[in-house]
């Protein structure tokens, strides 16, 4: 049984959606209606145009890890709403809504497991949780993931997805940039690989910190990756943005990535890379 069919057999969410009568997925890129089962069996990549849909941590873990070989790490608890922030809504209510919608505690989850027999810790940012935004909870989860990798003496792989900082946590969200950077430095000093896979979208403070500090940097096709938002840039320069601007292939052309990897090839690519960077583990 190849790994793709293993993934197919481990898709508990399909049945749930079917009972809701939501059988079709409209591709945001080519507008084709695709049978949801077929779409998810294809790793949430459009079978018509190849558009890589956004997926959450659980689906990602399922796709990346060896079968039955992974377990979730606990999500660190942090101060809730440290600024008592409210805009049109209270921040605590926004968090509550995000938790209800996703069933998760915050926007970054870690799991420990194996990729083709090689131990790793994988962190996945969840765009569905408040746009994947980086607050204290995300920063703390990143640090916990890196430290779990340190403890296990295995690589830390992060899948980034974020609209940027969690504005509702103000300066504390900005401080996650240096905080996560310290965790990366500790991995480096321990001689452990830190691998970044950027997924759609990766922008703002996340890009300007841990997303750009990988030993090796990959991205999924067509992922939006940048520091400044396109609207902000357009307002500043007052001219049309170049074709493909801030897309994964564009960043590859400009030397900011090592490779753009299709989702179906990610697992194998990561396994090969780890085999090169940690040959003694690969032999085990």
């Amino acid at each position: 049984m190849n790994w793709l069919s293993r993934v197919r057999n481990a898709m508990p969410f399909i049945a749930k959606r079917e009972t809701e009568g939501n059988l079709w997925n409209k591709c945001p890129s080519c507008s084709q209606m695709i049978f949801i089962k077929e779409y998810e069996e294809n790793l949430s990549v459009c079978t018509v145009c190849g558009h890589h849909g956004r997926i959450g941590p659980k689906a990602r873990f399922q796709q990346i890890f060896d079968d039955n070989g992974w377990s979730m790490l606990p999500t660190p608890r942090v101060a809730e709403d440290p600024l008592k922030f409210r805009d049109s809504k209270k921040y605590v209510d926004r968090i509550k809504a995000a938790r209800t919608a996703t069933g998760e505690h915050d926007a970054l989850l870690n799991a420990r497991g194996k990729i083709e027999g090689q131990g790793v810790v994988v962190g996945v940012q969840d765009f569905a949780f408040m746009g994947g935004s980086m607050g204290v909870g995300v920063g703390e989860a990143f640090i916990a993931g890196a430290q779990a990798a340190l403890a296990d003496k295995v690589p830390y792989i992060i899948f980034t997805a974020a609209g940027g900082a969690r504005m509702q946590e103000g300066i504390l969200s900005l401080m996650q940039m240096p905080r996560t950077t310290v965790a990366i430095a500790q991995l480096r000093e321990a001689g452990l690989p830190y691998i970044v896979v950027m997924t759609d979208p990766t922008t703002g403070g996340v890009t300007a910190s841990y997303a750009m500090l990988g030993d090796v940097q990959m991205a999924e096709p067509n992922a939006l990756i940048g520091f400044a938002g396109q609207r902000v840039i357009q307002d500043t320069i007052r001219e049309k943005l170049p074709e493909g601007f801030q897309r994964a292939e564009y960043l590859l052309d400009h030397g900011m990535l090592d490779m753009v990897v299709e989702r179906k090839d990610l697992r194998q690519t990561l396994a090969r890379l780890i085999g090169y960077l940690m040959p003694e583990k690969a032999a085990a």
Partner: protein
Amino acid sequence: MVALLEFEKPVAELLARIAELRESAGATDIDPEIAKLEAKADRLLHDTYAKLSPWQKTQVARHPDRPHFKHYVGQLIDDFMPLAGDRAFGDDQAILGGLGRLGGRRVMVIGHEKGDDTATRIRHNFGMGKPEGYRKAIRLMELADRFNVPVVTLVDTSGAFPGVQAEERGQAEAIARSTEKCLELGVPIVAAVVGEGGSGGAVALAAANRVLMFEHAVYSVISPEGCASILWRTAEKAADAAEAMRITAQDLKRLGVIDEIIAEPVGGAHRSPAIAIDALGAAIGKSLDSLNGLGRDKIKQQRREKFLAMGGL
């Protein structure tokens, strides 16, 4: 005369009245009245600045007459030797740096320069750094590290430049690496937020052993206007966003994000720049002395532990 801010209008009216009286004067019998009005204006200025809202502080922090990098360097740094270039692309004028002496101590000074008239603002790109600016900062920090020279940074930027070429040359990567460099230095780094501390473009120079901040400076993850236009869907709610985000030195001290607040002269640093600049110089000197002789590992460890502890339960 310094440019007056919107909320200083009552003070401005008093000052106008005083000027009027002076003009029509010559007669000594109105002197007592002028003195009374002047005392009143002073008191009003004092009271206004004692309870500035976060949005008002933002205006003060952005005041065109507020001292800039070149003023701090001019007054505080002896024998300044500017250093230039990232050795890869160019020399960014928004981020300047060089070697010098602060009260006799060797330092590498790096900071944002906004410029203070149309020509210099354009030249310095309003203090918005580009990748080559952050890469120059990295270069200068590495140089300082190798020759055991402490680093002093002066943060004053609305943010890193949002432009097509800046993105193409890796703005995000340059900021990430600059932050990383601050954190791996074996020499002390003391950062001072002297005006605006705007987002990643600020933190890239401010991941320091000690972070100082002027009394009316602001430091935030996004500008109040930017936050308001996203969360309130109109930039006109900037004052509310400034309030909600906790961007003042007083708030950041409470949150443990900065280490020390430097008092400004009554009416803000722009009213008595020389006094403000001296106060900054003294505070930086004291911070450098407190870190002196700690040893490379301890310096690095102190910085890491400080940031790792931030925002914990």
